[in-house]
């Protein structure tokens, strides 16, 4: 297992899991969602190409009402 920081909170994940699979574990509807990976914004088509490692930081975001 690896330790990640996801949306500011520590979480565990399986070794060698890629970002696409990891997101799938949350059953996230990816429409209107974006992901920051260690401070970089990752395009959806590249999710599968990113293998998560211990200590990675993810920001999984969506739009909310704001002015």
């Amino acid at each position, binding site marked *: 297992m690896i330790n990640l920081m996801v949306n500011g909170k520590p979480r565990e994940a399986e070794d060698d899991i890629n970002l696409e699979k990891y997101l799938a574990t949350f059953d996230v509807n990816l429409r209107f969602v974006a992901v920051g990976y260690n401070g970089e914004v990752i395009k959806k088509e590249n999710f599968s190409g990113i293998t998560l490692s211990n200590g990675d930081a993810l920001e999984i975001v969506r739009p*909310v*009402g704001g*002015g």
Partner: protein
Amino acid sequence: MSDDLVIAGKHFTSRLIVGTGRYRSMEDQVEALEASGTQMVTVAIRRLDLDNPNEKTILDYIDPDKYNILPNTAGCQTVEEALFVARLGREVTGTDFVKLEVIPDPKYLFPDPAATLEAAEKLVNDGFVVMPYIHADPVLAKRLEDVGCATVMPLGSAIGSGQGIHTVEEVRIIIEQANVPVVVDAGLAVPSDASKALELGAEAVLVNTAIAQAENPGLMGEAFKNGVEAGRKAYLAGRIPVRAYAQASSPTADVPQPASARS
């Protein structure tokens, strides 16, 4: 008469940009946006609730055929945060437009001029259509225009304060010097605030709390629609000058006399 607002080549017939924060209900918001006639609405970017990853988002309530989305960087206190959130917002919404906010001050939510300028330049170079939220500082506005911002968005007063436009003199000068649309943002409370901004030559206004928190958001949205139209038409119609003395609106001669004392 075609009189569109044009931002980065995109045309808008409405000069009212509306925020989507602080509505009491989605029904209120949908009604208010509709009534306001707006064609551009702002959204914020926040962390997804991973315990509830499929809840509807604000965009599920906004018809993309009716409204252009303007993601903001609200909540960002540094250049780095603003760049990151701007890029996340682009990924979420698919638009290059961004309302840039770099706000270290939690009490008045006033923006940081130097940090905003730095972030604006980087985002422009990254292909964004940057609409920076700024203090009504004419020199800052000019520099933001010089680095390629698509508009400048000087504040009227503190966000959500409902104090109206304290910065009329500065906004007037920003408009006088600007080659990009000036959008007055923040503090507007009533349609007369919006109308006044457009009468001065502002190209648009951004309104959120004044509509969202009104007792009747739908009716207030409609009121702002009318106010913005009023202000723009007055700007185009050419207002009368200010005079120190009165000018009679009725003829001063030939007033009938009860007895012909005066002739």
